């Protein structure tokens, strides 16, 4: 059995890489992928903690996170398509209409 410490450290590393992707990349699709990466890092933490606690609730929550991620991906990508149709760009620096 792998120590919980290492699992949580791996999960934290993946989450931080996802945060770095959202903050550093300008391509809206890659930012979206980084968000998926963060969701998965949290899922990994859920599963390993649930394993140590011996409860199934963590896995059920991971199941719901997956469902919400599917819904989020569908709506988010539709928004990206809709923006791309208007702006012909996927660079977030071009979507500054709401910036004051």
């Amino acid at each position: 059995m792998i120590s919980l410490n290492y699992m949580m450290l791996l999960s934290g590393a993946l989450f931080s890489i996802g945060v770095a992707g959202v903050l550093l990349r300008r391509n809206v699709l890659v930012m979206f992928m980084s968000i998926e990466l963060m969701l998965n890092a949290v899922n990994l933490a859920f599963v390993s903690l649930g394993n140590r606690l011996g409860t199934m609730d963590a896995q059920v929550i991971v199941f719901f996170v997956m469902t919400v991620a599917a819904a989020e991906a569908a709506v988010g990508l539709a928004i990206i398509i809709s923006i791309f149709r208007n702006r012909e760009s996927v660079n977030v620096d071009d979507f500054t209409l709401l910036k004051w």
Partner: protein
Amino acid sequence: MPAWLFIFFGALAIVAAFGVIVQRNPVHCLLSLVLTLLVIAVLFIAEGAVVVGFLQAIIYAGAIMVIFLFVVWLLNIPGTPAPGGQLAPKFIGAIAASALGSMLFAFFSEPEAAVRAGAMAADYGSISSLARVLFADYLIAFEVTSVLLLAAMVGAVALARPPKNLDAKRDAEEPRRDEAAAG
């Protein structure tokens, strides 16, 4: 799971996650993300979450990533030019991300002592044990999920459908494109 296997998969997950954020071509980013998700699925299975691991491989790495791939192809993005733009936000972003990373490392360094290990059922992670919790304790959340998916589907179709006046605009542009193609 032996330690060397965990080290291999952990290193693979981190390398693939870096691949998501450093590569130029979105399709390559996406393939790295699929690799990361598959490695995480393997780790799920190693942690006893067999059903969730397979769901991760089938739904996440399969279905959701295919939607991403369709959108990347549909948008037909020209190759990303060399990184430019303002450096200050990137600098601040890098500092913020590494600060968060080290904070998480400090926070997660000793959770083993904090967690009281519980007794694990013999059928831990099986479909029946997952279903027993899902349809008993989380039944309402499960039913609400169906409404969520329906709303997401309707919303996605409504958002991605071209506006009505776009057809007229496209018709007006079409002859010019044909001429350009012919010329």
